[in-house]
């Protein structure tokens, strides 16, 4: 059936947005996870999207998650000598995650997800109505 490319496109977008929501959830959950070593500390994750051709119709572009990239930003260094994980000089390293920026990203991702759900439902209704044509 020729309506299937829309389902592939909307499905790929919903999958990509849910990967984005998962990475935001990881970032927010680990915003306060400190470590004594800058190499071991949690780094913010972000998915990288790219457009990919759809099988049913090569002129269309769906979304693909290329990779979930870890941030290169230097971790924050805090002086907390009483912390159990503090290093020899008394510093702990915290991930450089801004909760406000993550929440904005979360809102944007859920709006995109809802828009794609609307596209999916509209395409489904039209496909069913086309099949029932003349009945």
């Amino acid at each position: 059936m020729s309506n299937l490319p829309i389902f592939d496109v909307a499905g790929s977008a919903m999958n990509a947005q849910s990967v984005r929501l998962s990475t935001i959830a990881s970032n927010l959950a680990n915003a306060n996870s400190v470590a004594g070593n800058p190499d071991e500390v949690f780094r913010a994750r972000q998915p990288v999207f790219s457009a990919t051709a759809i099988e049913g119709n090569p002129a269309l572009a769906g979304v693909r998650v290329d990779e979930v990239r870890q941030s290169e930003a230097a971790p924050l260094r805090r002086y907390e000598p009483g912390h159990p994980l503090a290093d020899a000089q008394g510093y702990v390293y915290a991930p450089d995650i801004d909760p406000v920026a993550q929440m904005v990203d979360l809102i944007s991702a859920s709006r995109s997800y809802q828009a794609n759900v609307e596209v999916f439902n509209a395409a489904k209704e039209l496909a069913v109505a086309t099949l029932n044509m003349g009945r």
Partner: protein
Amino acid sequence: MSDFLGIHGTALALREQRLQLLAANIANADTPGYQAQDLDFTHALGAALRPSAEAGDPIAAAAEAARYTRPSSQPSLDGNTVAGALENAVFAQAVLEYRASMSFVESKVRGMLTAITGQ
């Protein structure tokens, strides 16, 4: 059968192509560097109805010929030109246009069924 449906059959197929393109826009609202595409329906319909000597699907060829990149309404950091609200509104309108085309095709089908069954 395509002569029976006439312009409405072609119009329905092209409306569907446009719907798929707009769905791809909404799907790629967050892809860096993606340019929003649209289909010029009047142009595509004219191209599809013109008898053409080329082999291959006339609908797909007409849709490809009438495709254009929507000019960006506001600049963005990652090069994406999809405006969420505009694309959703255009998609809703395209769904309505598809339903209108479908109702024309349906009335032709009903007319044929009445002619066949006599009721």
